[in-house]
Each structure stands twice: as C-alpha cells, then as structure tokens.
C-alpha cells in the first residue's frame, strides 16, 4: 500500500512543527526518516497515524485521503505504529498482550459472552509472536521483559493489527550496538515477509545506510533531502545540518 504525504503542516502554539512536507513512500518500500532532534520526526508519525490532527495537507493511503479519519479508522485502513518508548500492557503476559490486541482488532473488545480469548485469536497471536521471535517469552509478564523484548512486543502489537504501512519510531532506541543490528535485521525480515511499506526513524547512521533503500531527511519540520543512501551521504546540506564532516566524526 503506498503512502503519500502532500503539503502536511502542523503548528503548535507559534511553532511550525511540520512545515509543508510532501513525501512519497512507494508500496513495499523500506525507508528511513532521519534528522536532528526536534526535526519533527515523531510528530510526523503522529500526524500520519492520527494521534494529532494536521492543520492542512493530505495523507493519501493508496490514493485515498485519510486525514479526516480518526486514529482508529486509520488503523483499520492499515496504518500501524510502534512507539519510541515501548507501549505495552505491563501486567499482562506477552501472549495476553497479543491476544488482547488481536481481539481489539477484530472488534470483539466488548464481548461479554465468551471467555477470553475468543476463538481464533490465540492462533493469530501465536503467529505474530513467532514473526517477531517472542515465542519463548510468551508467558512472561511484559513489565519484566528485557528492553529489547519490550520493543519487539511493541512492534508485535502493531503487527497484530495487520497493518499495510508500519511506522517504527526508533526501533533500536536504548539498545547496545549488537542488539541494534539484531533488531534491525528482524525488522528487515518482517518487512520482507509481510510485504509491508515500512518507514522507520533511526539515529544510528550505520544502520540507516545499510538497511534503508530510501532515506528522507527532516530538519526544522521540513524535508531537507531525500534519496538513496549514497545520495544522502554526499548531500552537502545534509552533511552540514546533520551528519557533520569526516573531521567532526573523528
């Protein structure tokens, strides 16, 4: 499913957090959104997923404008979101987290007639657990999971909703170098398997350049540049604003 953003703008108080952004994410692409802190990356995700209402512009999912839709409706249309700070249900086990999410996705959250989980839900939850690799911690309470597993659970909850577009907000945040690569590999595997249109925010440039097929650079709420890793790496504006020169990096 392709995602197109046209002239998206959002102002908070007097600040233009997102300033006339237009971007295009082809169906099945794997892109990264990078930029210095405060560039508006998370806000950008929030506008797409519907957590915030945009002031103006269009968000087109497969050609249809979803800007007027609530975040639940956007979720049903296929927008999935994982969060920078893993957002799960801490008192429930991993399995329960996913079964609950699938149940909600199926619209059965108000069901008083049967026992939890409703039929069919457990299988779907197991599938998602396998996809992200959390099967061995299925019966562990989310609160005591390792940080990495919590992030995986966060992504799994998003996946349980059968998204076509998946927005990952800093999937490797808070992880050490090795764990980061494992995480991004898993993300890439998911992307391939599920044929998702995946967009992720990331700060680790090595990862970004290795993994993403296209990169968008945001700065002060605007698109500074977009292109392939090579193009971005050598883009002078990006280097000045964000990457720094070889000398700076040393």
């Amino acid at each position: 499913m392709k995602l197109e953003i046209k002239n998206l703008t959002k102002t908070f108080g007097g600040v233009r957090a997102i300033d006339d952004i237009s971007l295009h994410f082809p169906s099945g692409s794997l892109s990264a959104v990078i930029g210095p802190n405060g560039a508006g990356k998370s806000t950008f995700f929030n506008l797409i997923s519907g957590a915030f209402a945009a002031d103006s512009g269009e968000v087109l999912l497969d050609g249809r404008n979803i800007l007027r839709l609530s975040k639940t409706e956007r979720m049903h249309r296929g927008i999935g979101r994982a969060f920078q700070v893993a957002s799960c249900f801490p008192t429930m086990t991993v399995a329960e987290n996913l079964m609950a999410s699938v149940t909600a996705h199926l619209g059965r959250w108000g069901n008083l007639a049967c026992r939890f989980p409703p039929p069919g839900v457990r299988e779907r939850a197991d599938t998602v657990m396998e996809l992200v690799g959390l099967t061995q911690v299925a019966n562990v309470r989310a609160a005591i999971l390792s940080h990495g597993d919590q992030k995986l659970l966060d992504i799994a909850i998003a996946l349980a909703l059968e998204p076509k577009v998946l927005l990952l907000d800093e999937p490797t945040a808070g992880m050490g170098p090795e764990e980061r690569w494992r995480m991004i590999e898993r993300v890439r595997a998911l992307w391939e398997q599920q044929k998702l249109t995946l967009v992720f925010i990331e700060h680790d440039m090595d990862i970004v350049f290795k993994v993403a097929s296209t990169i968008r650079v945001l700065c002060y709420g605007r698109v500074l540049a977009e292109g392939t890793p090579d193009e971005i790496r050598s883009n002078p504006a990006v280097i000045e604003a964000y990457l720094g020169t070889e000398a700076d990096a040393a």
Partner: protein
Amino acid sequence: MKGRPGLRDAAMAILALIVVLAIPLLHRSPAFEDFIIRLSAMALFATSLNLLVGNTGMVSFGHGLFYGLGAYAFALTMQMTDLPLPAAAVVAVLVTAFGALGVGAICVRLSTDYFAFITLAVQMLFYSIIISWQSLTGGDQGLRGGIPRREIFGFELASQLHLYQFCAVIAVFGLLALRHITASPFGQTLRMIRDNESRASFLGIVMWRARLIAFTIAGAFAGLGGVLAALFVSGAYPELADWPNSGQAIFAVMLGGINSFLGPVLGAMILLALNDVVTRFTEYHGLVLGMVILAFALGLRRGVLDFLRLAWPGHLK
C-alpha cells in the same frame, strides 16, 4: 489445569455452595449464619467495586450509592407492589443499573482524581435525598414496615436458615457471573485500559463506552448486594448509602487484593470479622479500624491474596 477454565470456575462455585449449604445441616450456629448472610451482601458489593478499581483502574469512592439504591428499591418495591420477591429483586437490580448508567454517563469522562470524589459527591446527593424524602424513605430512621411476603418458592425467608441459604446461592451465582465478566474479552479490555490507556485507544477501544459499561455492571451487582442487605435488616437504612460504607468497601478490596478475583471477598470477610471483634471490646471501632488501615496502607501495601499469589506463583485463582 488448562482445558475449560469456565467449567473449572463453575465447578469450584458449585463445590463452595455445597459446602456452605451443608454446614448448617451439620451444626447450627446463629452467629456464623448471620456472618455469612452479611458476608454475601458485602462480597457482592466489594467484588463489584473491584471491577472498577482493580480491573479498570477507576477508583470510585461512591459505590455505596448503588448498594443503598438496591436496598431501598427492593424494599420499596416489596412494600408498594404485590410483586413476588424474585421479581422485586430483579426490579431493584434494574433500577440500580439504570442509576449507574446515569451517574456513569456524567462521571466516566472525568480524570481519576476527580472521579473519586465526584462519585462520592453523587453518593452524598443520594444520601441527602434519602434523608430528606421522609414520606418515601422514612428519613434518617430508615424504611419502616419491614419487608412483607419474604418468601420464595415457598421458603419463608424470615427463617434465618432459609435466608442463609438464599443469600449463599445468590452470592455464589452473582460472583460466578462477575467472574465470567472479568474473564471475558471485555474484562481483558478493562485491564488494557487500566494498564495503558493510550495504547488501548490506539487499538480502537472506545474508552468512555467501556468504562460506562463497567460502571453500570458494577452498580448493578452492588445493587444485588443491597437487595441481600435489605433482606438482612428487613428494610433499608440510610447507613447503607453513607460514605463510610463506601470506605469500608474500598478497604475490603485493598485488604483482600485488587489483583485477585476473590480478593475482595476475602477482604470483606476479614473486615466484617474485624468489625465484629472490635465492637465487642470497644465503642471506638473507628479508631481501631483507622489504625489497621494505616498499618495496611503504609506497611503491607498489597492485599492478602495478592501477597499470597506472589509468594506462591502457579496458583491461578
């Protein structure tokens, strides 16, 4: 034991009921039967409160409103109409459910801090109505005239044994129903809301609707407890709807354990026993109760059943 947990719950309930019903057949003890009757009402009251407090994270400090409403509605229906007892009980529960729906519609959209004392304020509004509407409710003296035709299927509920049996049956089945609700997908939804509101709403859960349904169900079951209380006191008294009653229910829930289904029942049991013991020794039971609560709130912090379950994991109740 995996398999059919619903069946397991029902089996345990039936077993408990059989035990409770068997006891007076072996040995009569008016004090024990009295205790069980009071416990039945309080157990429904406290467990229904925990649907809000423990499951959804909604701290209602005015739950006594529905307990009192159930009692008055039942007693008045029995006095003013010719409906048989079961029908009057159903009417009382329905009236309470509608009351809960109305109150909830105003209150559930509020943030937690406000929610606690708004529910308290609404309860006190109800209380002041009871006190001032003397012609209907008897004011602060309570409803006079008792409960006529206290019989069901030929059993005279004026007899303590029959009242005991009736209360035990209602309480067990009421608790079983509440158990089913907490174990349903809806119950899981409530816990999702408690754990992580924003993610829950991201998943498409309509928060206010879920909370309102929970509030209504909780109110209805508290009303059922009120019906039993009315039978016990043969009428209805304003004390049933007064704020200390709500406070006691909150404490019972916390004492027994908000994370265990039977926690509130255990807490109610402990609290009733405590009150009984303390009133025997001193008239200042408020003082003693207050100190016990402080000791609990500052020391133990966690309900008994929760504490036990943490100490011995693997025992899912």
